[in-house]
């Protein structure tokens, strides 16, 4: 995979498969600390310690017993190649949390890519899940919670063209605002 946002999509799909009701995705771009952090947290069925060891090893997984693939090992390898870290914790019946960190400026770090589409996709294709997207660029954040939106829609599908347009623009402008405000703030301090 060529973009970190595709990895986020892949990891979040695991959470959906694990029957999570609540999934929180966090993206932190902290250029001052030279850090890129991604995390996906769910309240799905969780894994025991034996399974947890298996999901990070590409060679001992067995597709017939459970949905485990190459996604997690690939992401772990990508982080480790960029002075980063990888952490996964899980408890049966409670859920799973995965955190990966990268050196932001590392030359081998994959680009984040199109995370608006990743989020939009997860939201539209999995309306049964309560989604939270937390985005931060240095000092400015954009937090997206789908609950008030779904309450306002009152059962209307998010894939209705006008609604889809509204949600997409909300995600795009929220992320762009966080980036622009942060960059503008940075400039004014140095002037």
């Amino acid at each position, binding site marked *: 995979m060529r973009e970190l946002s595709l990895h986020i999509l892949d990891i979040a*799909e695991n959470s959906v498969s694990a029957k999570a009701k609540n999934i929180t995705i966090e993206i932190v771009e902290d250029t001052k600390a030279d850090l890129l952090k991604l995390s996906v947290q769910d309240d799905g069925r969780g894994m025991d310690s034996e399974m947890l060891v298996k999901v990070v090893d590409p060679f001992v997984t067995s597709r017939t017993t459970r949905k485990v693939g190459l996604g997690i090992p690939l992401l772990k390898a990508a982080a480790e190649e960029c002075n980063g870290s990888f952490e996964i914790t899980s408890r049966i019946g409670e859920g799973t949390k995965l955190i990966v960190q990268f050196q932001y400026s590392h030359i081998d770090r994959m680009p984040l890519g199109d995370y608006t589409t990743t989020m939009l996709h997860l939201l539209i294709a999995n309306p049964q899940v309560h989604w939270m997207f937390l985005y931060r660029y240095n000092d400015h954040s954009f937090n997206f919670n789908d609950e008030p939106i779904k309450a306002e829609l009152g059962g209307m599908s998010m894939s209705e063209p006008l609604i889809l347009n509204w949600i997409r623009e909300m995600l795009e402008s929220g992320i762009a605002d966080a980036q622009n405000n942060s960059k503008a703030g940075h400039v004014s301090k140095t002037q």
Partner: protein
Amino acid sequence: MSTIKSLEDLKRVREEALKKRDLKASSGTVQVIVGMGTCGIAAGARDTMKSILDTIEKDSLSGIIVTQTGCIGICEKEPILQVVIGEAAKVTYGKVTPDIAKKILKEHVGNGKVVTDHMINI
């Protein structure tokens, strides 16, 4: 300067969407399913999905339920797209690029004509 949208705004958009939907005669539910296993994502399923969502938005295609499935065991044919219209049998398409997805939405979903060139048997 902030362009962040308010829920008040969403209320208005929802009412507009309701009006448009009511004008259209319901022709049964249309379900569009994208394969989203690791294999699908690596093969470009997100771009296919993006193309579907863009087309729904641009062409104002109302009443389409967009959903997803995991790996269905034919990873070499990913990205996979399935279309179910009303009571008709599910049609499966393989190697669906963004352009092919657009074509399927237009011809199959729009005019009820199956795009046989890209259909696969599973």
